């Protein structure tokens, strides 16, 4: 693609920043709070310059108090505001797990439908930067276990730019997981791009031989594998889930019903995971369409190691995806 006046070149980080700027400009109830979102410019520089533009009331630096400021986000959401709470990484969200699971996810139901929580939480997820076992995990699938919250995983510039506004308009709590490896991803985005739907998966690459089902940080790896496979004459379809809860089951089943083979690629661990859930749904809804068992390429079941060769080995990589596909297609 070339840059003309209808598209703009930007990074995922900038797309996210534009989404924040747009939301803050459109709705006075929207504010951003989290650790170092203001003066520091955001730990991954997503909120850089927003403090100067919107002031410290709306770009709120918080102390290191994840449980308190996530809870405060819930309270403010209950009381007329539209908070965007940033948690630096998913590992730190564990300090706020009580507020997310016991409050954000339950208050509407527990109150018999009286109190909804229009809260958005943004967090970084994923590995690949040698940050070891307390900064690298992919727990979005784990959060997707919880009824009452919605789980988004923007993997493209368009979704980074467009999911936030839709999430803010949602009456219920939405968690947006941004894979840390995506922030520097650069590409073209339509200048007039805006809000996108958040309840549908997307076919990022149509194909007829096999469905590669993935999301977030592994979408790029699946696309790369699909490119490589096409040279070997294998036509892989790539499904980007986009939203992990609620899952767009019809799109998954439809794809598998056309290709008759499926691999799920997930940076999370496989045991008790979102990949297990997807596999189960395929069994339940498209079992007789399958030519062979569903397979999964997931992270090794270890806390993330620091050393690069070990981290690389622990993560799903495109050569392994391609190899899995070749084996499956060759076998049937």
């Amino acid at each position, binding site marked *: 693609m070339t840059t003309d006046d209808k598209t703009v070149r930007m990074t995922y980080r900038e797309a996210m920043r534009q989404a924040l700027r747009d939301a803050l400009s459109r709705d006075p109830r929207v504010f951003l709070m989290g650790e170092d979102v203001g003066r*520091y410019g955001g730990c991954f520089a997503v909120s850089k310059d927003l403090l100067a533009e919107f002031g410290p009331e709306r770009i709120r*630096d918080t*102390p*290191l108090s994840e449980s*308190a400021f996530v809870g405060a986000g819930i309270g403010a959401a209950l009381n007329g505001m539209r908070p965007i709470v940033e948690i630096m990484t998913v*590992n730190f969200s564990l300090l706020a797990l009580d507020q997310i699971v016991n409050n954000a996810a339950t208050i509407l139901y527990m109150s018999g439908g009286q109190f909804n929580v229009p809260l958005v939480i943004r967090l970084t997820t994923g590995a690949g930067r040698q940050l*070891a076992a*307390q900064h690298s995990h992919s727990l979005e699938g784990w959060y997707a276990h919880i009824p009452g919250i919605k789980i988004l995983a923007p993997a493209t510039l368009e979704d980074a730019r467009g999911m936030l506004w839709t999430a803010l308009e949602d009456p219920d709590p939405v968690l947006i997981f941004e894979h840390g490896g995506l922030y520097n991803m650069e590409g073209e985005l339509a200048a007039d791009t805006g809000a996108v739907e958040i309840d549908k998966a997307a076919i990022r690459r149509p194909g007829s031989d096999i469905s590669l089902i993935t999301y977030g940080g592994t979408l790029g790896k699946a696309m790369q594998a699909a490119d490589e496979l096409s040279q070997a004459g294998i036509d892989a379809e790539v499904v980007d889930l986009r939203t992990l809860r609620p899952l767009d089951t019809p799109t998954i089943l439809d794809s598998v019903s056309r290709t008759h083979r499926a691999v799920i690629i997930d940076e999370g661990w496989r045991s008790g995971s979102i990949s297990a859930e997807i596999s189960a749904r395929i069994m339940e809804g498209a079992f007789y369409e399958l030519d062979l068992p569903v397979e999964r390429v997931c992270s090794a079941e270890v806390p993330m190691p*620091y050393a690069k060769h070990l981290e690389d080995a622990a993560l799903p990589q495109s050569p392994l995806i391609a190899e899995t596909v070749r084996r499956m297609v060759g076998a049937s």
Partner: protein
Amino acid sequence: MSLQADRAAPTLEREHSLHLLRQMLRIRRFEEKCAELYGATKIRGFLHLYIGEEAVAVGAIQALQPDDAIVATYREHGHALVRGISAESIMAELYGKQEGCSRGRGGSMHIFDARTRFYGGNAIVGGGLPIAVGLALGDKMQGRDRVTACFFGEGAVAEGEFHESMNLAALWKLPVLFCCENNLYAMGTALKRSESEVDLCLKATSYEIPAWPVDGMDIIECERAACRAALAVRSGEGPCFLEFRTYRFRAHSMYDPQLYRTKEEIEEWKQRDPISLFDARMRESGMLTDDDLKQLEEEVAAEINRAVEFSEAGTWEPIEDIGRFVYSERKPS
């Protein structure tokens, strides 16, 4: 080498002073090398330097006995070096080599060493405090006369885990020496922007924990305060809290444009560089000559060179072993 813990007021005698100076220099030069190696991509991930804060770890650790325990944060190279973990095994860890103290699995933020009872390297702010409380509980319940020193930044004071740990340690009169390294900033957030009450000792005393502020740029003050506090902790009266007032001269980590503080402020603090201060003080009292310093620097440089050579020559853990130690290899008998 370390000072007797019951020695509450160390004097400025030459041999001991040289020891303190050497320890601070070891940290400074080791970390300068780390920054260089980060630039050369030998070290990756997050790298948090302790440069400027050396007097705190060096001073505080003088108060510990060999069987005491340490819990530290991701900014822990200095503590590890002073505690006696070899520069080789720390540097190899930063390289990700299996000869590293954590086999290359932890990296800069997760230094562990069983021999010296060094329980990490914790990269969750506040995450180390409850563990320190538990280590001390274990000692108390087993009738052992040991202290657990717990290091953390002032940023941790905002976390619930800080308050819960303070309360538990005080309630159960546990032998924890809480060492708060107040370098004024938690990443880009100044203490005064994150705490309604910036007197950190007051927070500890509200839990009935004796607490003292300490000039963290003055190695002698750090050592004296730590020895006094450790003595109280060891006597069985419960935890103590020290607030070391210090400053980090470098960025928070390797990716920090430092928009939140001025160059002037950094320069002002550099006037109180703990190493230069102590160097000047030793010279004043005739304990240090140019030759002494030259010799010290050479010895430290040689140690660091050995560490780099050792790490360069180190090996990668076989990928087949990636799953080792997710669970213990020793099965219950």
